[in-house]
């Protein structure tokens, strides 16, 4: 460890804490993007987002038990949650368009109850133990100290996913439609595209991202039916801080929240939970539409 200190903490430790924050942020980013897209583009507050996160983790862990391949789980969990998301949008959410934000909110709230209880019935109350796959276990020296290999993988993998998503939204025809839809749904209609199809895809994509985040988080804490509850609150913070419907905003906010949590843990550990809500309140009061949110995306 070096002798340099800031505020009484060695520089190495601060560095490690920063990397820890980024790893934490990686999960927040993935959950936050999904919620933010659904929120910003469809005006739907998806209260079941944490439940999709949780069910995704269960699907992944369950499959891992059969196949022994974590990589397969990484594909299957988002796929399954994407399909479930499509079904939910088509059957439950679509009838509510045009009714205002409270109806989808209450509906997805009820849906989260159903999903959590369904998992309890299928997999029991206690949760399942789950650790990092053997090839990603252990810690490596990153120059400033040892850091768990799995968390480094988490950072790299999330960055790759975000990159792919960015390419998808910026460089594809469908991405153009999404961007147009975020600005003004009527433009999309004028372009001759059924907005309901766009919304269907967005909801599925958001849920798939939640499922992916779930299976990525599983090796950190195992899985339980309740694991989605705190995640939902954190995803809301990310969405609000970043700006609803903004991909870059969600990434930025996810990382900020992760780093704020990590640094508060160092300075005032007992304040970590309060810190993220204080951050959210501050952003809302100073810049209500979020760091990178556009005015008028929601009206």
């Amino acid at each position, binding site marked *: 460890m070096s002798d340099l200190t800031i505020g009484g903490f060695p520089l190495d430790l601060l560095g490690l804490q920063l990397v820890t924050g980024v790893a934490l942020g990686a999960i927040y980013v993935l959950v936050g993007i999904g919620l933010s897209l659904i929120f910003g583009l469809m005006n739907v507050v998806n209260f079941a987002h944490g439940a999709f996160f949780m069910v995704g983790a269960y699907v992944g862990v369950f499959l891992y038990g059969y196949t022994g391949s974590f990589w397969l789980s990484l594909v299957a969990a988002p796929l399954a949650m994407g399909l479930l998301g499509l079904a939910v949008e088509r059957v439950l959410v679509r009838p509510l368009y045009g009714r205002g*934000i409270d*109806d989808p909110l209450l509906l997805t709230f009820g849906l989260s109850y159903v999903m959590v209880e369904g998992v309890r019935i299928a997999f029991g109350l206690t949760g399942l133990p789950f650790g990092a796959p053997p090839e990603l276990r252990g810690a490596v020296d990153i120059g400033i100290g040892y850091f768990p290999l799995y968390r480094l993988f988490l950072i790299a993998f999330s960055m790759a996913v975000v990159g792919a998503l960015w390419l998808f939204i910026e460089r594809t025809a469908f991405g153009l439609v999404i961007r147009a839809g975020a600005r003004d749904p009527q433009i999309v209609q004028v372009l001759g595209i059924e907005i309901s199809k766009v919304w269907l895809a967005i909801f599925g994509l958001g849920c798939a991202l939640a499922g992916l985040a779930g299976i990525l988080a599983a090796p950190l804490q195992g899985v339980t039916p309740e694991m989605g509850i705190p995640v939902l609150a954190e995803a*809301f913070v990310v969405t609000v801080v970043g700006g609803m419907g903004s991909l870059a905003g969600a990434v930025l906010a996810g990382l900020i929240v992760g780093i704020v949590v990590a640094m508060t843990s160092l300075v005032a550990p007992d304040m970590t939970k309060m810190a993220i809500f204080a951050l959210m309140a501050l952003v809302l009061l100073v810049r*209500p539409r979020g760091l990178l949110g556009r005015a008028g995306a929601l009206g």
Partner: protein
Amino acid sequence: MTEGAPAARPGSGRTGRWLARASRHRVALTLAFLLVFPWIAPYQALAVNILVLGLYALGFNLLFGYTGLLSFGHAAFLGGGAYGCGIAIVHYGLHPGLALAAGTLLATLIAAAMGVLAIRTRGIYFAMTTLALSMCVYYAFYRAEAFTGGENGLRGINVPSVALPGVRLNLLDPTVKYYAVLAVVGLAIWLFSRLLSSPFGAALEAIRENEHRAQACGYDVARMKLAAFVISGALCGLAGALQAIHLSIVPIEIMHYSTSGQAVMMALLGGMGTFFGPFVGAATFSLLQDGLATLTSHWQLFVGAIFIAFVLFLPLGIWGEVLARLRRAGW
């Protein structure tokens, strides 16, 4: 029973003679129902809960149903009222009547502070701002362990009896307790009704229907919204104070945002923007949870499914739907 203001969503048809007549006596009709309610409820402790939650939903409804502001921070007011009342009794030995006032006052102050900050935002941002601020209040109370008991909750709000001029009420008798709480809730309902029929009530509805038009009509919209927020907070605070005395404890969970979610659910279940809806919502919510929890350990599955069904098929809420049907039938 009754319909105070027009339903929040487009109603169908004109209000008939009978409904109009019922609306004039909405306070009396609501109280008449609440007077006989303990004979219908499974047990009195639950009946008192429903009374308290009904008042909580009523306060919330002033903001959501009548003014059109969706707040996710009402748990801070319910909790503020409960802690204010509990602390007054446990730490300062105040008379329960004064403690109720202290709780309501604390909730009002919290509402004023939160309102001043939150009222500048609108729509979903307003909901999120109130959520974030209420969570800050939650953690502040959580950490003030010397006063609030922290995670363990505040215990010892033991009020076995209340001395009033001429009588001593034995609150350990569940029936006496119910009617004592009802007396306070009834007073609040009456004040609430007066408020709705005042010019202020009309102004709130104007704001709900169209904020810009209300502004153009010369209303000070920001100040009206703030006033509604604070009055709503005071009503919720009174509900919290009553709950503290009823349960003799204040759990920290009372301030969590999930309790705010409860208010939203009760208002939607009962029918927002209707006078009696909050009580219908509170009763449905509590009876569902209580009854299903006795029948199955998987009660959350059914509660969830029922919420989904309500949103899809009964968007006006139970009472809202009843009113709409009566109106269609020309009552």
